[in-house]
């Protein structure tokens, strides 16, 4: 029972960042909020559905399927958005054009690592880099980050918001840095 109680928080910490990283890589950093919303929506739906109906046989696969569908719905529904996104898609292979959302282990690991580089961009201060890393890559809640910084939610929210704005302005790409 104890393990079942902890399942969703545990999965949030391990899978939220994977889903977000893959979607951000697909959409581009300027649409990071949409990626975060889709990942959050997926977990909200899981929390309610699993509470009502029990935990599915393969919880991770369940999360990935819902996240993929949610992402596809989003792209379908917002035609204007899709035009903007397809124009700016970082990857141009035909799979992406057909809106295949690749949640394979390789793409997850690559996306997470590339996100790490993007988030730790020198254009934003270290405390913003750490905050964004905790939020996006480690699945921490805003309150937990505030506690870690001995700060409050408002300050952290503002800090993360500003950092994302800055990274957008810098047109940060989700990619591996060139070998030096």
């Amino acid at each position, binding site marked *: 029972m104890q393990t079942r109680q902890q399942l969703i928080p545990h999965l949030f910490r391990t899978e939220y960042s994977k889903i977000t990283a893959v979607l951000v890589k697909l959409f581009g950093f300027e649409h990071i909020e949409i990626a975060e919303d889709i990942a959050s929506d997926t977990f909200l739906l899981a929390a309610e559905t699993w509470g009502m109906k029990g935990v599915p046989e393969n919880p991770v696969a369940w999360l990935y399927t819902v996240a993929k569908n*949610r992402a596809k719905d989003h792209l379908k529904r917002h035609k204007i958005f899709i035009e903007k996104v397809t124009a700016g898609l970082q990857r141009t292979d035909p799979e992406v054009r057909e809106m295949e959302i690749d949640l394979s282990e390789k793409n997850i690991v690559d996306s997470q690592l590339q996100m790490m580089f993007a988030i730790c961009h020198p254009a934003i201060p270290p405390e913003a880099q750490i905050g964004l890393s905790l939020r996006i890559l480690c699945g921490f809640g805003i309150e937990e980050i505030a506690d870690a910084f001995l700060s409050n939610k408002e300050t952290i929210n503002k800090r993360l918001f500003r950092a994302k704005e800055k990274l957008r302005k810098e047109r940060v790409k989700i990619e591996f840095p060139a070998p030096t």
Partner: protein
Amino acid sequence: MKEFLLLFRSAPSGDPKPSPEQLQNITKPWQDWMGSIAAQNKLANPGNRLDFDGATVRPQNVVTDGPYAEVKEILGGYIVVKTGSLKEAIELAKGCPILNMGGNVEVRGIVEMNA
């Protein structure tokens, strides 16, 4: 005993950025509530949670995308309970976690075919 359909409606959430603990605080009350109805042997059908997307079909081939455009509240899920009276079904509905998330529960009697 009569069957009642419990329909959960709620407004689309404005800020869906839950922390892991908040997620657990959503799951637990649903488990407890469903569990307590089942323990009283009043759960006729565990129902379903409905997906966000969908469509509405109207006469003359009019199909609108999803239920969200025109409604303030979205039907989010349902279960069927079996109780001695509407009053009893209402008592069960009062414990529904959707009430703590800005939602409401509609309780409707189901017309029996084998009276």
